[in-house]
């Protein structure tokens, strides 16, 4: 098994996710892109864990999953609340907290 392939896939997924966060306006899509980045790192964790024969990376991956699940709960709730009050899911519209 070649770890490099997995790592390359992980890097590709992370880049796609990061680009999505930066270029998309829709909050839901941004959110999905964030999930993509998280899972890309999970893949990297698991790959390294496998390569080194240690379980630490897998444990870390579980942590990330748990945190991501919690984050989804909070984040989606916020997005729904904003959508209800502003009738918009665009992250650029939610820009009141500024100078």
């Amino acid at each position, binding site marked *: 098994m070649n770890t490099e392939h997995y790592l390359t896939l992980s890097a590709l997924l992370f880049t796609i996710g*990061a680009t999505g*966060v*930066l*270029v998309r*306006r829709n909050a839901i899509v*941004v959110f999905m892109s964030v999930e993509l980045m998280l899972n890309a790192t999970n893949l990297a964790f698991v790959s390294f864990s496998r390569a080194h024969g240690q379980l630490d990376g897998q444990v870390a991956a579980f942590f990330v999953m748990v945190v991501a699940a919690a984050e989804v709960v909070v984040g989606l709730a916020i997005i729904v609340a904003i959508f209800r009050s502003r009738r918009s899911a665009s*992250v*650029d519209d*939610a*820009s*009141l*907290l*500024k*100078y």
Partner: protein
Amino acid sequence: MSPLALSGTPLASGEAGVPVVPTAVDGVFSLLWLVVALPALGALVLLVGGRRTDRWGHLLGCAMPIGSFLLALVMFVQLLGRDHEDRQVAQTLWTWLDVGDYTVQMGLLFDPLSALFVLLITGVGSLIHIYSVGYMAHDDRRRRFFGYLNLFVTAMLVLVLADDYLAVFLGWEGVGLASYLLIGFWAHKDSAATAANKAFVVNRVGDLGMSLAVMLMVATFGTSSFVGVSAGMPETSEAVATVLGLLLLLAACGKSAQVPLQSWLLDAMEGPTPVSALIHAATMVTAGVYLVVRSNFVYELAPVAQTAVVIVGLVTLLVGAVIGCAKDDIKKALAGSTMSQIGYMMLAAGIGPAGYAFAIFHLLTHGFFKANMFLGAGSVMHATNDDVDMRHYGALRKAAPITFATFAFGYLAIIGFPGFSGFFSKDHIIEAAFGENWVYGVGALLGAGITAFYMTRVMLMTFFGERRWRPDVHPHESPAVMTTPLVVLAAGSLVGGVLILGDWIVEWLEPVVGPEEHHELFVPAIVLTGLIVLTVLAGVAVAWSRYGPSQTIADTAPTRVSAATRAARADLYGDALNEAVFMRPGQKLTAALVYVDDVLIDGTVNALAALVGGTSGTARRLQTGFVRSYALTMLGGALLAIAATLAVTLS
């Protein structure tokens, strides 16, 4: 010796003044503290007690100084029975300050000099308290007035009984405070409020001299007690003595309204008349004379300072007399006269051992006759609805016979009519002045002539001539509570001269100021006395010819008058001088400093604030509120961090 001691050779101890060497109190003297404590208690009860003391406050206010007077009288008699060298007793009350090596004891010193002052203050003070019961009867703040009067008596007693210059300073400031409160007692009048402030500010200038003098004493001798300073003086240089003498003179000028700090006294007449009598005639304004005589051990070593005292006294006695000639306000005429008479005392005190006793003698007789005349003026004002303009008086002798008779006693005393107290005291001062220097003598003689002129003018315009009363004025005699003190003071004005019988006062003061040095005159004393009486008569004659019963006195002051009269009416331009020399340049300096503050200091601070504000205003524009731009920043930062890590690892 401290670093402040200036260079110069110490003088031989033979020329020094008399050192203060008191013995501890015993017997009745151990109650000395009570003399001060009684009026202090009165002031406390009246001022803290508030309105519940309104009904009996004035009675308590009178009782306290009377109690002090009786106590002081007993002590005075005790002191009379002692030997000369045993006549200084001191009582240490408590340790006032205790700072390392420097301690100040709060103590009282009862010696022939302070004994006379205590009797004058409590005696004349009591009479004026009694008079005030009637004078202030219709004032609904009478209780407060008595509280202030008691406060004044307390402070004045501290001033004359203290055995340390620092404690004298305490009393000095205390009488200043009481004077301020009482001049401004009717502060609802703008003129009274302004006069109180003026008195306070001018006195500050003099107080500066006093505090600097105390500092110099502590720096030079390590103490400011009379005992320490008088013992240390002979070892010190003449320069230190001169500086000390001049600083004390500055203090005396402020408190005693001597040129150049004379301007406040005339305005101080805004206070109730008993205040003018007690504070601004009989007691407080003589504190400067007390200070000079008490500090004889300083002045004896400082001939320059002594000459300065004489010149101040001489100038003031003439300036005050000239001002007194031009005033139509009876109280201001008397105030000018007070300045002038204190000028006589300063002149005598500056002459040295030949004059100390006579300065105090004149101070005592003046305390009687001037208090008498001020209270008489108050009685006249009482009769004429508080009118002070002498042009609205005239022919009051029938309407107020007791006031007239008592005022006449004061009048005869002040002009120096033979037999009256003022005759003896002024005669001795003029004689001593001639003995020192004929210029001093001629000045003092001239002053006596002018005194006779303006006092005769006051007398004639008030009690003689035509009735010039306002239509709604119905003059009447004052009640007995006011006339009784007048009668007592008039008696004092008449018989005060007995103090000089057999040179009693000179011998009495010997333990404090040393024996009198008598200078031989170029003419026999009796000739000089004749000359003085002739001068006085000339002054009276001139006044009679201009203001006598056969002359009509204009209802308003004539405006077409000589330059000299105009100058005298304007207080010889004392206020104008102060304004031109101190006030306007002071205001300009303040304006300049405010400008510097506005432009330079505020400018710098404001510019710094504007710089920070402007920069942050620009910088905060980075916070756009767009989540995606923050994300890009984070990504950029992360990439930078990774790049840096790689660069370090790979290199």
